[in-house]
């Protein structure tokens, strides 16, 4: 065991040891005490440790610094509560900032693991047809070879295409895989996807070669050597394992588990297939690696017109403009093409929240420190009398503030360590205080502490050092009035921030809830999705459907090419009454005749597809309201829409509209509903919307029994095939998880911001009440009642809160309107979040102040007046 240990006394190890000690001690305390007491005890341990360690550092041997430390120490001890508020507020603030930084870092990390990430670009396309304007990240099959050949600044180019729903047989086991990709060999040179076994140059050359990720190889073959083995996929096609690749890191937008050679796809669909030859069919992700120093802006401009060069006549004929574009790899996750919101939006929001929390924590610190200036006026007087220079005093106060912020920083680190499990749960990310993996972390923390210390210390340092010894020693303190103005401004700003954050939180939560509750236009409950992965299962659709229906276990069954929530490809359509140059784009799905019943869609006009056995369905189409509206059709049923014949280039097929359905969300609810073209055609070719799943509507109630019986039926119809099912509501709920995570994260940090603000306010209330003890005493002696006293003491702060609301509302309104405008469907803007946010801040601040003022007002006036 000893041999395994690393022999190391580096600082990182030291820090790791210390953080580990505190975590362990915390868990130890937790076994006996509540979370709060355990936290306090660990915090106290931390303070003692910092105190002890600082005492032994040699810098304090120098007189001046030792004196400062003594003073700081005494001041901390003299008023423990005040110090706890001051340090605690800053520590909570810094802790929030560190956590937010970790989260933001994890967002920015996507795809940065590629060593050449800065030179990798994805080829996308901008398509404009009629009113449709689509920007997306896929391109045609020609792009990679064409670009690599004709553009010298491109070092390598490769295509990738997802192979979803793969059924893999290894020995006797069957596995269901969803993250397999067809890939060009060049991709292994572009991406940092190192091979552990096999040769990167040849692994993806031959058809039916497959490169497995390490964990997948382990799953299939255990610890045996995978290269040279075989796996079986689809209709008994044998694939040769030619390589094993390191697992793709967590922070990767392409969550790949295996790569299949691109030549396999060519072999499967035929080199002449439209999928591979059509310049305007965008079914591949193309990644290019530029030579170092290449000008990507110039390249972007040069590739723009390639499609019009190749297919100009066709594009002009349908009135389309299609241009190519380059998207940097590092933007793929952060700024999804064609979407107005994306992770970058939230990165900005969270950065702003971090900055605001840091500002509030700093304001607190400044406020509390300056507030105490009065009590330290004498100290300044004495020091000056004894010959201290103004510069020396500035250094003293600044170093005191930096010292305190460093202590807070250390406590913050501890709080972060303890809060990490919660945040990991919340974000579903492996966040960690990883000092060796994030070399910027330690300098950043030191910088944060230093800046906070300087910001917080500057004002008191400049103010206090200006005192004239004669005046302050005679007992005339001027600071009250002077500092008071600035303090009031800071408290005011704090309230503006916290009110604004609270309102924004309210609106964000409401909008995200709105999306979650929005009528989807279909009934997602009790719909089972049954994957048909192999050609054999697809051939069995009519038999399966009959067997399921006649069993009486199901209400309705439909074959489908996609499911709501996943979206569908958009294709050219030529509706009646339009010229050839006014081609329209519509999302195309292929569903069988029972789809209206199975999905619970609402037919607004027409009859829909005819029932089984009456075979005119392949000439019919159902459209949605959005389509009827886009084409300006009042009476849509009976109109003709022409659609390209996918088997014959340049040929068109007429489809008659037989129904108009109410709009439903085929894509994520955060995206707009596009015109829909719903056909019912069992003959559509592979990858052009063929049926690859069954949607099964089950009766309400216990689903597991139905599932069991359906499984039995499946196995009698298709012995040896895997029965692979999911439920539509679960799949659908997945898209909300990200939304929910963002919402929760935002609410947590808004709450923390409120805590920071409350801590500051409590400090201020404590201070100002203490200042006015005599006044209260006199008022009371003169006959003032408790409620009047409380009012007199709270009035000023309440005025500040109300003024803050007056500024926070319009500012929040502007930001919120902009944020909401990015969603095609958003809630009605109401004033409720404003009222609630404002009222909550008012209530919280009043309670905080009241805790102090009521106490002061109830106290015996003699006690206050006796002292002097």
């Amino acid at each position, binding site marked *: *065991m*000893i041999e*395994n*240990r*690393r*022999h*190391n*006394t580096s600082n990182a*190890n*030291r820090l*790791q*040891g*210390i*953080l*580990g*000690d*505190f*975590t*362990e*001690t915390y*868990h*130890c305390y937790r076994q006996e005490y509540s979370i709060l007491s355990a936290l306090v005890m660990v915090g106290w*341990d*931390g303070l*003692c*440790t*910092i*105190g*002890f*360690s600082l005492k*032994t550092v040699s810098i304090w041997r120098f007189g001046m610094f030792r004196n400062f430390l003594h003073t700081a120490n005494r001041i901390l001890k003299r008023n423990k509560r005040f110090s706890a508020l001051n340090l605690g507020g800053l520590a909570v603030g810094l802790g929030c900032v560190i956590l937010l930084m970790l989260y933001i870092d994890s967002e920015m990390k996507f795809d940065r693991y590629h060593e050449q990430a800065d030179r990798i670009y994805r080829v996308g396309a901008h398509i404009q047809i009629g009113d449709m304007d689509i920007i997306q990240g896929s391109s045609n099959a020609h792009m990679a070879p064409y670009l690599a050949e004709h553009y010298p600044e491109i070092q390598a180019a490769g295509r990738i295409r997802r192979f979803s729903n793969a059924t893999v047989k290894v020995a006797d086991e069957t596995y269901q895989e969803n993250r397999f990709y067809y890939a060009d060999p060049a991709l292994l040179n572009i991406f940092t996807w190192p091979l552990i076994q096999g040769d990167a140059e040849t692994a993806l050359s031959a058809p039916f070669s497959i490169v497995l990720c390490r964990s997948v190889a382990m799953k299939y073959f255990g610890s045996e050597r995978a290269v040279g083995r075989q796996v079986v996929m689809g209709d008994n096609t044998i694939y040769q394992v030619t390589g094993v690749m390191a697992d793709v890191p967590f922070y990767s937008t392409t969550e790949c588990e295996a790569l299949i050679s691109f030549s396999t796809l060519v072999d499967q669909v035929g080199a002449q297939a439209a999928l591979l030859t059509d310049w305007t069919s965008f079914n591949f992700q193309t990644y290019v690696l530029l030579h170092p120093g290449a000008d990507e802006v110039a390249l972007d401009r040069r590739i723009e017109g390639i499609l019009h060069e190749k297919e100009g006549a066709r594009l002009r004929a349908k009135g389309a403009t299609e241009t190519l574009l380059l998207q940097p790899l590092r933007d793929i996750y952060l700024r999804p093409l064609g979407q107005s919101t994306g992770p970058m939006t939230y990165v900005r929001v969270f950065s702003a929240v971090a900055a605001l929390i840091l500002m509030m924590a700093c304001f607190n610190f400044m406020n509390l420190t300056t507030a105490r200036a009065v009590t330290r006026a004498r100290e300044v007087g004495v020091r000056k009398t004894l010959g201290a220079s103004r510069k020396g005093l500035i250094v003293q106060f600044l170093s005191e503030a930096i010292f305190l912020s460093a202590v807070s920083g250390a406590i913050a680190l501890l709080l972060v*360590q303890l809060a*990490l*499990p919660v945040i990991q749960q919340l974000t579903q990310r492996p966040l*960690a205080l990883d000092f060796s993996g994030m070399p910027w972390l330690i300098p950043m923390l030191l910088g944060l502490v230093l800046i906070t210390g300087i910001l917080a210390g500057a004002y008191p340092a400049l103010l206090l050092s200006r005192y004239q010894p004669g005046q302050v020693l005679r007992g005339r303190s001027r600071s009250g009035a002077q500092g008071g103005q600035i303090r009031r401004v800071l408290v005011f700003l704090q309230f503006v921030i916290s009110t604004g954050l609270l309102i924004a939180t309210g609106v964000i939560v409401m909008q995200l809830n709105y999306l979650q509750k929005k009528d989807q236009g279909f009934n997602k409950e009790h719909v089972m999705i049954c994957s048909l992965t192999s050609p054999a299962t697809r051939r069995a659709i009519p038999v399966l459907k009959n067997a399921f229906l006649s069993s009486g276990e199901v209400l309705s069954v439909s074959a489908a090419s996609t499911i709501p929530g996943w979206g569908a490809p958009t294709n050219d359509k030529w509706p009646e009454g339009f010229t050839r140059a006014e081609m329209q784009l519509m999302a195309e799905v292929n569903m069988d005749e029972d789809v209206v019943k199975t999905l619970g869609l609402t037919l607004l006009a027409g009859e829909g597809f005819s029932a089984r056995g009456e075979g005119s369905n392949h000439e019919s189409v159902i459209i949605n309201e959005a389509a009827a509206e886009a084409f300006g059709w009042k009476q849509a049923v009976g109109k003709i829409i022409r659609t390209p014949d996918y088997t014959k280039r340049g040929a068109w097929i007429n489809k008659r509209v037989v129904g108009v359905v109410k709009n439903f969300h085929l894509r994520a609810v955060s995206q707009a509903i596009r015109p829909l073209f719903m056909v019912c055609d069992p003959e559509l070719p592979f990858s052009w919307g063929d049926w690859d799943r069954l949607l099964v509507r089950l009766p309400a109630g216990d689903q597991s029994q139905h599932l069991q019986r359906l499984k039995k039926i499946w196995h009698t119809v298709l012995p040896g095939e895997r029965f692979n099912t999911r439920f539509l509501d679960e799949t659908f709920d997945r898209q909300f998880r990200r939304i929910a995570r963002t919402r929760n994260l935002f609410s947590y940090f808004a709450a923390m911001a409120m805590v920071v603000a409350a801590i500051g306010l409590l400090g201020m209330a404590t201070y100002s009440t203490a200042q006015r003890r005599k006044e209260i005493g006199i008022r009371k002696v003169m006959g003032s009642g408790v409620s009047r006293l409380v009012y007199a003491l709270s009035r000023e702060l309440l005025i500040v809160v109300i003024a803050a609301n007056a500024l926070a509302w319009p500012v929040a309104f502007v930001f919120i309107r902009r944020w909401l405008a990015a969603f095609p469907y958003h809630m009605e803007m109401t004033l409720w979040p404003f009222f609630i946010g404002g009222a909550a801040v008012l209530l919280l601040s009043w309670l905080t102040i009241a805790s102090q003022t009521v106490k002061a007002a109830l106290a015996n006036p003699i006690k206050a007046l006796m002292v002097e």
Partner: protein
Amino acid sequence: MLTRAEELILLAVWRLGEAAYSVKLRDLLKTLTGKSWSFGAVYMPLERLEKRGLIVSTMADPTAERGGRAKRIYTLTALGHKALADIRRIQDAAWEGLPQPVVGFHE
């Protein structure tokens, strides 16, 4: 010469053997002296002892209760053993022939 704290810690490291890391050391010192020790009071002497070559530290495997962080385990070096033996010898020599101090009633 070692300070009292260093001496106690050196002994504690020896006594705990494989389990000699800061949390356990602190617990042991607490039971031995009946007073609470801050981590700083443990770390600082440990650092000095390590610098003087009386002990060496190694990083053990991380555990879950420590939030996935490794323990830093201390072991006595030959020099450390010699130092302990010296202390024992000097203590014994100094006590030689003296009666036990009286612990008991005070007026």
